[in-house]
């Protein structure tokens, strides 16, 4: 049997790059199913009473949180459609930038032709340093930790903030960030507020135990695929759909190279055995 040569890393990278770029040029439109958990989260938000306050908050790194951003954008569109209200609470330095990105991309503000008015339907708080201690103080009394929003406007001038004083006013906490354990511990565990995490594919396994511990209060989607599923439910094609094609092709490449690696090993072993036999 002929020996298959070991591929160098840059050969593999070049192949993957070509594969990754195919859907950019020619959208594949790979099909996918809606998972039960994504449907559950969608229905929970869909059935919330009008005017409910949802918090989008947590601590994370923007580049990582790009992945949950897909589902977050879709859910913001859903919230705007259902006349829900949103408060952004960034607990990490880059979280503020992500919150602005998802709201701007969802185009739900009146300036973008959407129904939301800033201060009435949506308020963005500034970055709150202090980690868990700040979160706990904020949950007890919002106004004791922040007095102005991200634009510097005093909170008492914002109608939404008159209805949001403490954790008791939060109907649902959505975390599109990596720093979910603090939210589960202090928001859901200690104060009983239900929470949703739009998880990265990588963090899903890490945080899945929380769904087991709080089966009626914690739910999670799974990466870009979860985002694409949520977009399909809301009825538009966004970041999730754009990523799913490449996701699909690269996962095929992953399997292909693992199988190829093992075939290479097999042929090398067989060749060595044949050579050893020939020497005898």
């Amino acid at each position: 049997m002929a020996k298959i040569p070991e591929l160098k890393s840059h050969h593999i990278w070049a192949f993957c790059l070509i594969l990754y770029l195919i859907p950019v040029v020619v959208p594949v439109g790979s099909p996918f199913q809606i998972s039960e958990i994504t449907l559950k989260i969608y229905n929970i938000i869909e059935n919330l009473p009008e005017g409910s306050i949802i918090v989008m908050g947590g601590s994370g790194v923007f580049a990582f949180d790009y992945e949950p951003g897909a589902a977050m954008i879709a859910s913001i569109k859903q919230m705007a459609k259902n006349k829900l209200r949103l408060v952004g609470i960034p607990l990490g330095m880059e979280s503020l930038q992500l919150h602005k990105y998802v709201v701007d991309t969802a185009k739900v503000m009146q300036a973008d032709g959407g129904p939301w008015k800033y201060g009435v339907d949506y308020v963005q708080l500034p970055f709150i340093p202090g980690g868990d201690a700040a979160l706990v103080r904020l949950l007890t009394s919002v106004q004791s930790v922040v007095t102005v929003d991200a634009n510097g406007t005093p909170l008492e001038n914002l109608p939404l903030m008159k209805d949001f004083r403490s954790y008791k006013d939060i109907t649902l906490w959505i975390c599109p960030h990596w720093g979910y354990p603090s939210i589960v511990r202090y928001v859901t565990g200690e104060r009983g507020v239900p929470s949703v995490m739009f998880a990265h594919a990588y963090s899903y396994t890490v945080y899945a135990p929380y769904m087991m511990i709080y089966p009626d209060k914690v739910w999670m989607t799974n990466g870009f695929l979860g985002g694409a599923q949520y977009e399909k439910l809301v009825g538009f094609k966004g970041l999730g759909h754009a990523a799913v094609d490449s996701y699909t092709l690269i996962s095929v490449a992953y399997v292909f190279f693992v199988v190829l690696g093992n075939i290479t090993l097999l042929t090398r072993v067989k060749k060595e055995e044949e050579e050893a036999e020939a020497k005898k």
Partner: protein
Amino acid sequence: MISATDSLVGQIVKKGLGFQLTLLIIMVILTYIAYYLGKRGRVWEIRPLEGLEAIYEGIGRCAEMGRPVMVIPGISGLGSAETLAGLSVLGEVTKRSTEIGVPTLATASSTETIMVIEAMTRNAYTAAGKPELYEPGKYVRWFGSDQFSYAVGAAGYILAEKPGMLIQVGYFIAEIPAVAEAGARVGAIQVGGTLSSMDLIAMFADYIFIGEEIFAAAAAITQDRIQIATLAGQDWIRLLTIGILVVGMTLMATGSKVIVDLLGM
């Protein structure tokens, strides 16, 4: 019905933390007993850790090849137990390799960790009688506090210096592939250990410390009898945890929530 004891305990201990506190006290007692027995002369044998054996061999291999060793204690600061374990490994590796003339290179993303590594390297050279060889910034590089600016910088550092062995023990998350791939390209032996991204370490490292083995390695690498004794305490605590799990599972299977209520006490 609330008894007098319940109300007294509730006034002193916060709700939901009673069992946790009790367990912590038990853990301290068990560790102290192991430490005390170790001090009294009891010798505890630990099974050989594959990664540790690889580190000892790797230092020798680097001396033969004339290549440096590179140690990365993670991306977190001094407040992380994993970073402290990584620093213990780094300290011992620096000491051993400096004695035989192998430079130890290091990088980290946290500035406080960098300061500690610089001090360790300086002390190692002084202890080996070669203080003139030490220069600030020569062995320890900092590429930024951001996770990926560190990862890209570390990858470039590895490609430039071509270490014979790359040890990554500490707190790591998703930046492991960037650094480890560079290590693979220069043909370095890779030893890794972390709690959070075991899957990525296992994919790239030749030898791994699985989970809490990084803490065992931090103790074992010093070859200090008393530190190794505390590992016995760690084992006893693990047995206790397994016992609680088994009892809890059995009780849950019978429909009893005693352990669950105890945990929430």
